């Protein structure tokens, strides 16, 4: 940054620097003078001296010539970019590495420091970066066998190598989170740690995705949906494609029968927010859908097709702007403005460049280009559109004429001018073409919309749910795979027998339920006739009357009953522990499962009496790859033999990954239209699974799930049968739980509890 004037006394000072360096590596000796010249030009005298000192230190580390060379070559850039004082931070890092088994990575560290510092831009940021590295090293070094730090960090060299790429799309904070995730999950797996830090593993990429800067499509999806509906009377499935790993050319948006494909993340650009960028992409696609007619491509050359696309895209944009004039500013901010002389037609194919300029000029009245042919075509374009009948074939004719008029021999050259010719809000126009020969007609523009997938089909694909990682306070994206299905069935009569056994209880419940039915009583005051005297109003009227003014005759009140509007989901933990016999008295050797069956039957019967929609489902899990969610009763299914049959077949096994099951039940409940939504979770133990060692993890995840449900207006309540539940149940459910100690009394407790909750 600071450009120091060339020092005339350099040769004499060089000798002094050489002495100061005191390093005998042959290559170092050779490049030194060049390096000093560069350093003198970029760093102040004090800076150069410190630079030489630092090189001397590196020389004496005993790590060979490589780190010294790298440092000498790279530092002047870094020091100039980030300013004085950063050298000390870097050298402290080097010393730190030297003291650990990671000394061999010093070269790698120095190697990527220059590109890294270009993205970091400030001293503080560099400090954060160094701290992240240091923290990572401390945690991953040598702990494989729990001994002293004798093994180097397996992931460190990979991390250093990837750092420049990572920082292209992550902030330093994001980088730290990503690193932290990798360290925590692969601490004891050197090979997987390497895979993670070299961006090989799927979760590594997923977390990177999550931590990216910019605006995620997922976060603005509803806004975009409203945009399509509100401004364009359109709607479409929005499908993200990944941009993080695209190397050569950035993929373009497109649309097909499955939806509109958009980049998963966009950054704000000068003059355009990421959200407006997304809107522009959508608007352009909507425009094509409305106004473009697919053309048969077989007879046209690639050049001709490209020109047709540019003209047609500009026509679409013009029509869009006609509809919403405010769109012009957004489109122009996104549309490149190629400089008129930027492409050399002697050496390069310039057709793209010419067309991009033309495209700019078609939209921008202040384009300022001077080329007369361009002006001529801009004029013709606008005259065609003013007529109101210009369609895709009109544009095609104009485009073919343009290609002929401006043709140059060099258009055929292999070297194509690409700079400033890509227009990021335009889709790839795959829908504009029809290729008769290859039989692609079915990919036509107005291809029929895909029917929504048939939910009845057997073996639904797994649904993925995130899991909350309390350590990092973040979600592990798509961590859990949940499979849903219908629970197996057995003889419904078993359940009828159970109910019969509880006939007395049912009678008692019925009385309670009858009280509950006229729920939601509303008092209506100021009634001339009503069921009760409203004492307040009556007194006031009496006073009015006595004092000679007109009393209000509406001194009664009455009550109105509105209907109950509660939707309920009962979620049953069907894990292995349910098979245990009940220990406390009165259980007659029944298992917890059998008692649950009775209790659930009574509850279902009770709720049926009230007419509230009720769904029942069971869940268990066998690692995060297999959470099973079994439907026992659907909301609209009556309490009949089919449901009783499934309840009779209830079986228990495996573990309790509660969070995922609650999220899944929640997504059904959230879709219900009801004033109140209640999720009852019946469980006999703490959330746990065989692939999780950290006891807190699934508890914290379930707690997070409860929070999410609460946010969606769903009230969760836990009925726990675990005598040790106090240790954790409040952490998950707050105050919304009951522990039932006498499990034998569950059949009467459960319906009572429900009644109390919904009274």
């Amino acid at each position, binding site marked *: 940054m600071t450009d120091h004037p060339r020092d005339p006394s350099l040769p004499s000072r060089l000798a002094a620097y050489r002495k100061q360096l005191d390093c005998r590596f042959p290559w170092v000796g050779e490049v030194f003078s060049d390096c000093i010249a560069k350093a003198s030009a970029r760093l102040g005298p004090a800076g150069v001296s410190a630079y030489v000192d630092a090189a001397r230190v590196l020389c004496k580390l005993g790590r060979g010539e490589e780190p010294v060379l790298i440092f000498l070559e790279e530092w002047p850039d870094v020091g100039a970019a980030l300013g004085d004082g950063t050298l000390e931070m870097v050298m402290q890092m080097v010393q730190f590495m030297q003291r650990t088994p990671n000394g061999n990575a010093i070269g790698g560290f120095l190697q990527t420091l220059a590109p890294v510092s270009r993205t970091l831009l400030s001293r503080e940021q560099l400090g954060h970066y160094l701290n992240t590295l240091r923290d990572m090293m401390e945690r991953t070094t040598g702990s494989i066998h729990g001994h002293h730090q004798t093994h180097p960090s397996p992931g460190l060299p990979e991390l250093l190598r990837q750092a420049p790429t990572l920082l292209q799309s992550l902030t330093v904070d994001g980088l730290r989170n990503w690193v932290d995730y990798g360290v925590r999950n692969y601490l004891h797996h050197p090979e997987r740690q390497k895979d993670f830090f070299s961006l090989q593993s799927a979760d590594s990429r997923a977390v990177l995705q999550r931590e990216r800067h910019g605006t995620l499509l997922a976060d603005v999806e509803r806004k975009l949906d409203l945009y399509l509906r*509100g*401004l364009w009377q359109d709607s479409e499935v929005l499908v993200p494609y990944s941009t993080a790993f695209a190397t050569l050319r950035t993929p373009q948006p497109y649309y097909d029968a499955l939806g509109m494909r958009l980049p998963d993340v966009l950054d704000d650009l000068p003059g355009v927010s990421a959200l407006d960028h997304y809107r522009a992409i959508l608007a352009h696609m909507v425009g094509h859908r409305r106004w473009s007619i697919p053309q048969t491509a077989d007879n046209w050359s690639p050049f001709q097709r490209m020109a047709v696309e540019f003209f047609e895209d500009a026509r679409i944009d013009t029509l869009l702007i006609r509809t919403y004039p*405010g769109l012009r*500013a957004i489109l122009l901010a996104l549309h490149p403005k190629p400089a008129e002389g930027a492409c050399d037609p002697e050496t390069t194919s310039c057709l793209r460049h010419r067309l991009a300029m033309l495209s700019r000029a078609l939209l921008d009245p202040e384009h300022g280009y001077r080329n007369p042919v361009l002006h001529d075509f801009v004029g013709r374009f606008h005259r065609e559109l003013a007529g109101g009948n210009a369609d895709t074939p009109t544009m095609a004719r104009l485009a073919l004429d343009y290609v002929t008029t401006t043709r140059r021999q060099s258009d055929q050259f292999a070297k194509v001018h690409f700079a400033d010719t890509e227009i990021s809000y335009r889709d790839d126009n795959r829908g504009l073409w029809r290729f008769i020969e290859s039989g692609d007609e079915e990919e036509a523009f107005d291809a029929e919309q895909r029917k929504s997938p048939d939910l009845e089909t057997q073996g639904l694909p797994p649904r993925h749910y995130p899991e909350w990682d309390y350590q990092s306070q973040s979600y592990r994206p798509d961590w859990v795979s949940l499979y849903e299905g219908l629970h197996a069935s057995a003889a419904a009569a078993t359940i009828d027998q159970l109910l019969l056994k509880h006939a007395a209880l049912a009678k008692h419940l019925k009385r309670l339920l009858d009280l509950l039915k006229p729920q939601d009583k509303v008092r*209506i005051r100021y009634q001339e006739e009503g069921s009760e005297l409203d004492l307040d109003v009556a007194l006031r009227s009496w006073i009015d009357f006595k004092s000679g003014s007109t009393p209000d005759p509406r001194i009664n009140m009455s009550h109105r009953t509105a209907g109950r509007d509660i939707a309920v989901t009962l979620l049953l933990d069907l894990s292995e522990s349910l098979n245990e016999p009940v220990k406390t008295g009165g259980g007659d050797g029944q298992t917890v499962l059998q008692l649950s069956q009775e209790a659930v039957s009574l509850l279902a019967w009770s709720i049926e009496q009230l007419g509230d929609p009720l769904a029942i489902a069971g869940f268990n899990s066998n690692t995060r790859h297999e959470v099973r969610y079994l439907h026992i009763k659907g909301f609209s299914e009556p309490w009949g033999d089919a449901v009783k049959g499934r309840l009779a077949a209830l079986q228990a096994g495996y573990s309790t990954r509660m969070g995922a099951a609650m999220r899944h039940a929640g997504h059904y409940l959230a879709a219900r239209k009801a004033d109140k939504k209640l999720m009852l979770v019946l469980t006999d133990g703490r959330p746990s699974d065989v692939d999780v060692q950290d006891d807190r993890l699934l508890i914290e995840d379930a707690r997070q799930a409860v929070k999410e449900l609460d946010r969606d207006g769903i009230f969760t309540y836990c009925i726990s049968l675990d005598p040790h539940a106090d240790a954790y149940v409040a952490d998950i459910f707050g105050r919304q739980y009951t522990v039932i100690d006498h499990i034998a009394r569950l059949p009467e407790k459960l319906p009572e509890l429900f009644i109390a909750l919904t009274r």
Partner: protein
Amino acid sequence: MTAPDSSILNQYLVGKEPFYQPQHDEVALFEAAYRRRLPVMVKGPTGCGKSRFVEFMAWRLGMPLVTVACNEDMTAADLVGRWLLDKDGTRWQDGPLTVAARYGAICYLDEIVEARQDTTVVIHPLTDHRRTLPLDKKGELIRAHPDFQLVISYNPGYQSLMKDLKQSTKQRFTGFEFDYPNAELEAGILVQETGVAPSIAAQLVAVAATARRLKGHGLDEGISTRLLVYAAMLMDDGVAPRAACRMALVQPITDDADIRATLEHAIDMAFA
């Protein structure tokens, strides 16, 4: 006893011609209904011109218009009348429906569904061939004046199932279904009502169209003609278009952040 003094209706006459922009043939149809004194029901979303239409028709027919805004606390007595106590004893006071029926006016019950169902049944005998109104408390049976007509309005949009009109009530009325006027007419209304420039009126209507398409996707009601009139008035007084739109068109209808963002974007796109 109350003197049969129809001068009481003078206050209900519509003085000046209200501006009303017909949407279809509703004016002629209303006149036809009035000729046979058929009860009329006017349905439509809020602020689409229902009240204005009825007011205009009353003016056109030269009839007094007695308007009652219905609400939940309203009882039959609020419509029919009641005995009042005073120092000298009791005195009967006609309610607005009774006044209209007795002396011959158009009675307009605005937002009838807001009233409780036991209230609405008092209109039943007035709305069939009997055209009578029994005042049970007073022991009087009023035969409706030959000029009397009953008009009710309701907005089928936001009422719950509980609040829907009973079939036996609905089936006593002829119906007019209103909606927001088409873009051209609506812009014309704005110009007439507020004096705003036609181009601005068209832009306002475009913003309203956005909101109306979002109904059911987080919006209970779209932007009404009434709100557009407000926005146009603000702009006519020199308030900047975006500020006026935000104040009159966005703030009143939603607190949903995504919808707000979309409407504000629509405003930016329309007013470039």
